[in-house]
């Protein structure tokens, strides 16, 4: 193999190859880091929620008269919803999961911890009845559901509801682990900060990701505390889960009837839950698409650069190549020459690119508060650019290989 001749030929006209190497370096830095960020965004968007959105919908109501009897309305609404054929469970809620409305308190096994600044474990709170875990489609993995008898009539406002609290709670497994690392959460008493109340953990659900939050805030999404309280009015929010395949029919029925069921209020909105969940991650997905498309184009432009350079070098060396063929080089040798030349250019770019990629990775992980760029992304990026580089040079190299030896005998 004529490596030394190849290198010295490269060195004699180095500007073009240097430019391609610089492109490859920047492209590697972009591809590796964007792939990592896109992966982060999609994994933030695609985490299991633990809920059965495909069979769920929600409905919100607003009162339009000051004398609206919320307590009576909730009771009647729940009776109506839960009796509808096809409905598995319906519950009132304080906030709807996946809408980024949150209510939380610090919790701890030891009330003393809660007096320290930032002490305790943050828990996101959902109010509901004994139908709550069924309405959300959560999987109870230990203990039992709420005792229907502990659910009191709704209070006038949230301050009073929090102060009244409830004797029981069901927590997500993540929350149970944080509160009781030894894994013996069931049956334990947990204290809530800011309200000075306690409740016993009667059940544990496998997972509930309340909202698709970025990974650094994930604790606020998955550390969930369910409390048997009917959220105060006068505006109502209900979550309903149906049997598989029945949701749209039930929703249409409820949409038609619900507004007139109670005087003094109207339906503000009713929405299928998979729609709500999709909207909640719209931002992540949009960003992932933007970054992916841009990265694809960066690679494409670099491919164009490689093709352009190789085509140019084939064009200017036509006669040389013809001469080489004439004095005995085979097509394979010419092809190999261009592939190796290109590989050397790409590789020098890749080496520089690795440094750039790591430097950019440090910056990004600081900015987005995500873990350092894993090295296998870098390995993947290097392999990708090698393959792309070789493929890009293949067409011009094949053309070079097919130059007829007769060219050598012609003048330009």
């Amino acid at each position, binding site marked *: 193999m004529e490596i030394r001749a190849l290198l010295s030929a490269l060195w004699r006209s180095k500007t073009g190859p240097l430019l391609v190497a610089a492109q490859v370096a920047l492209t590697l830095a972009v591809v590796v880091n964007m792939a990592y960020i896109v992966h982060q965004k999609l994994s933030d968007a695609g985490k299991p929620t633990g809920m059965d959105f495909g069979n769920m919908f929600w409905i919100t109501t607003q009162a339009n008269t*000051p004398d609206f009897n919320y307590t009576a309305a909730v009771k009647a609404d729940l009776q109506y919803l839960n009796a509808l054929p096809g409905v598995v469970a319906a519950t009132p809620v304080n906030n709807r999961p996946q809408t980024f409305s949150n209510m939380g308190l610090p919790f701890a096994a030891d009330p003393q911890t809660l007096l320290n600044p930032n002490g305790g474990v943050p828990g996101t709170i959902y109010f509901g009845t004994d139908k709550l875990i069924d309405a959300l489609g959560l999987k109870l993995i230990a203990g039992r559901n709420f005792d229907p008898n502990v659910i009191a009539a709704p209070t006038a406002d949230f301050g009073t509801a929090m102060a009244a609290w409830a004797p029981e709670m069901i927590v997500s497994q993540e929350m149970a682990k944080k509160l009781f690392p030894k894994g013996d959460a069931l049956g334990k008493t947990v204290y809530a900060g800011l309200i*000075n109340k306690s409740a016993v953990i009667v059940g544990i659900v496998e997972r509930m990701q309340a909202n698709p939050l970025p990974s650094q805030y994930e604790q606020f999404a998955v550390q969930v505390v369910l409390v048997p309280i009917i959220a105060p009015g006068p505006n109502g929010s209900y979550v309903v889960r149906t049997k598989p395949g029945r949701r749209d029919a039930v929703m249409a029925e409820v949409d038609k009837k619900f507004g007139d069921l109670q005087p003094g209020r109207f339906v503000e909105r009713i929405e299928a839950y998979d729609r709500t969940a999709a909207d909640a991650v719209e931002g992540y997905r949009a960003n992932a698409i933007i970054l992916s498309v841009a990265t694809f*184009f960066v690679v494409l432009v670099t491919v164009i650069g490689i093709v352009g350079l190789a085509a140019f070098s084939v064009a200017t060396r036509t006669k040389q190549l013809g001469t080489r063929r004439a004095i005995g080089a085979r097509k394979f040798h010419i092809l190999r020459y261009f592939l190796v030349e290109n590989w050397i250019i790409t590789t020098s770019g890749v080496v520089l690119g690795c440094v750039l990629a790591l430097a950019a990775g440090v910056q990004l992980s600081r900015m987005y508060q995500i873990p350092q760029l894993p090295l296998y992304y870098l390995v993947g990026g290097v392999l990708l650019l090698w393959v792309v580089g070789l493929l890009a040079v293949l067409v011009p190299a094949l053309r070079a290989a097919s130059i007829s030896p007769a060219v050598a005998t012609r003048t330009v």
Partner: protein
Amino acid sequence: MFFHDLQLALRSLRRNPFLSALMIGAIAVGIAASMIAITLYHARAGHPIPWKEDKLFAVTLDTRDDGPPESFERHPEYPPFQLTYRDARALYASDIPIHSVMMYRSGQVLSPDNKNIKPFGVTTRLTTADFFPMFDVPFIYGSGWARAEDDAPGAVVVLSKFINDKIFGGANSVGREVVLDGRPYRVVGVIAAWVPRPKYYDLNNWGGWEIPEEVYISFGWYRALRLSPHGNVNCVSRSAKIEGPDALLTQECVWLQYWVEFRNRSDRDRYQAFVDNYTNEGRRHGRFPRKNNNRIVAVQTWLSMYDVVGDDSRMQLALGFVFLGVCILNTLGLMLAKFLTAAPICGLRRALGARRSDIIRQHLIEVIVVGLLGGAVGMALTLGGLGFLKVLMFSARLAHSDNPDRVALVQSFVHMDLSVMLAAIGLSLLTGVLAGLYPAVRIGRLAPATFLKTQ
């Protein structure tokens, strides 16, 4: 001379259409990527009220317990961005500012007189009277209410244009009645279409990328109506006790936005002393456990403290420029290749008496033509890309609202204004020159004799 060069440039571009198309294409996608990124960034990085930059200030006090920062806090040194009711009330007594505003966002139900329109939910801002003059809110009809209405709140309401159009058909509704949550209010003013970007005076709800509220009533109504805040309520001290309806009035929970306007700089300094004095006094009674960290900040500082631009926009901007860099390198290489293939012609021109500067100028004209053509194609790509992004990023936020302000807000994210367009033209020229300068000089430098030889 110029036209001759232009002719030569166009002829040269036609001679090698594939390579020319690649160059123009590379510049076009580079320009498009960077312009889209600049547009998205520019839309978020603007100043919503620049003419009041040295007059308008947000007020924050550090009410937090003294302790280690939470792990997820990026700037644990910043105080909470809202005030407690108690502190807002106390600061409101100061007459150093010419305007003071305490306020929050909530929601109500509006029941129109016209029975053809069903009752519907509206967003409500409960604010003190100075809101309107302080933030230069434009009115179509009437005005805000008098300060006297703040403590003994009158049943008066200011409507947004959207609501006035919806229930009064856009007529002058001043003096007419609007029923909110079953209680009648008299309209005193109607605001013109007004969408400050960002909504700097209240960064709750989408980090400030939200439209203004639909109706405005006096802050004094909080005590009577107890409308719950539709924003962040943060009980920042573990000494807070939530026990009953008065928690927000009495406890260490922050939920109110607080802004002031000063006549001049020295009033601001006097006010800082006043606020520091207030927290010093409070510390003597066991409040404000941290050192004084009372920040009275102008809009620009405020927006950067709470990062309304956001990492994603910054990332897109950086990516856009790296992209452009790759495209410039690419075009540079292609341009060099193209010029060198055409070297014999230049050699001939040199041999026939053209000066080196003629050759360089001729090639520079060619690269500028390539840059501008790339810029033009890039602009078309930019507009197409922005249209696509609007659908991609904001369809959910547009789906459930008939409020034109929301459409305007979303439109503004992907709107290319004059300054961005001028930047695009400048950028494409710069790109052409950056990519073409070296090849042009290099081709001019080669001795004519080398050109005339064959390979």
